[in-house]
């Protein structure tokens, strides 16, 4: 089980504002998910090497060659606000 406090903490880190009701719902849902995943811990992993990645792939590289840049109007088309060619954002303290 996770606590409401943990949900509040994760919500803050994700910049989500949750109502009291939502906190209750998510506490339950997140706990269920963790509980489900916890079943993996019952498996005997003795002798199984740790995995860092699920695909049996390695060493996918690209060469150091310049490609196309995005047009400045496309770059800024999703910007809530712009000033010249800059994204304009609230002051961060």
């Amino acid at each position, binding site marked *: 089980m996770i606590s409401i406090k943990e949900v509040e903490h994760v919500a803050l880190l994700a910049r989500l504002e949750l109502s009291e009701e939502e906190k209750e719902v998510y506490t339950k849902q997140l706990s269920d998910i963790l509980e489900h995943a916890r079943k993996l811990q019952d498996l005997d992993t003795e002798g199984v090497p740790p995995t860092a*990645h699920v695909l049996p792939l*390695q060493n996918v590289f690209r060469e150091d060659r310049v*490609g196309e840049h*995005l047009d*400045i109007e496309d*770059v800024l088309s999703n910007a809530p606000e712009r000033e010249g060619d800059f994204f304009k954002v609230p002051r961060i303290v």
Partner: protein
Amino acid sequence: MAQYEAVIGLEVHVELKTGTKIFCPSSTEFGAAPNHHVCPVCLGLPGVLPVINRKVVEYAIKAALALNCRIAPYSKFDRKNYYYPDLPKNYQISQYDLPIAANGYLEIEVNGRAKRIGITRVHMEEDAGKLVHQGSISTTPYSLVDYNRTGVPLIEIVSEPDMRTPEEAAAYLEKLKAIIQYTGVSDCKMQEGSLRCDANVSVRPAGQTGLGTKTEIKNMNSFKALQRALQYEIERQIDLLEQGEQVVQETRTWDEDRGVTLSLRSKEEAHDYRYFPEPDLVPMVISEEWVNEIRSTLPELPDRRKQRFVRDYGLPAYDAAVLTSTRELADYFERCVELYNHPKTVSNWVMGDLSRMMNATGTEIGDVCIRPEQLAGMLQLLDKGTISGKIAKTVFEEMFRTGKDPEAIVKEKGLVQISDQAVIEKVVEEVIANNTKSVEDYLSGKERALGFLVGQVMKATKGKANPGLVNKLLREKLGK
């Protein structure tokens, strides 16, 4: 009062000099118009996939080898999560538990004492964008974001907490910078931000082995700032302990104008990064062949080159250390010596007049317009007696300003040394006639008066008289 000892470790970020970013083909070129060197990958648009630039891995390995690190046979990327407008994805792709390299060291020397500083790890990560404020960050009405720097490749080099004084920390950073510059993987320009340094500092009573509570200091943009900030922070922590208070573990920023460190305590639990493996990038298996291939491209590094300068050129250790502090300066020196085989003379000019004029004009060695051929040429004119030592300084300054050949300057300005005995004799006679007091002084045994008379002759000939000849003639005329 108890004696305290500081414990310092440095985290250094170095921008790698690749042509494109770490995970996308956007250009890394400096100085482009804002947001013009971006693509869907570095902007973090949905559905894109990062792919690692092979050259970044190669450069990271090269730097790590130069720092005596062990290269990891297996390495991966992780996501470091935090919210800040300079980070469009809300996470930075970095390396957490399987960095590309670890367990290295470098050697520093402070007050003649050599010391080995351990390097814990070297890992690769992407740079963040740049925020532009109007005035200071606390008073700006809003911020502007430029994502050109987002995704520029960085390596972070983390030291062991092996340094005990601000001087040792500065020496470590100097040496680190020199080594990385020698490898050619980065410019390491602190002012331009291609070399950035954070410090972890704590203090403890001398003799104690446990560590005190540390603070992390950011925003030190020069070697001087690093030393000042550390000095301030060490004293601040000692004061706290002396007053029976506790050091709070926190991040502090160096305020250069006020000369203090300030708390950056944030209410938002910024240090909960929740690292997890980056699912969009596959792991890297680094073969021994590749590592050896990269090792074979390493140049002679500063310590080895310094030793060779002492051994092969017979230079004092101090000269050798200064001359090998950057690869460009050492190359310049060696090219000069190839053309004019008197290493100590060349060293004196490079460390003396050249360094002085470079400092005075803010010129880097790469931009100095005196070519080694020209410096060697000037030294040959000096040896031949065409110009005097005093005139050589004038010629040197003119070469530094204009890049002209020494012969041309000497001709143009009529600087050829006067070695014609008859001409000098005439001036000597005039000087003797006009300075009876000094002549008497000299004759009564005051050797110093001769120097004055030589000076007068030099002045009358605008520094062009051959000083040896002037000396000889004066002594002869004064019958001594």
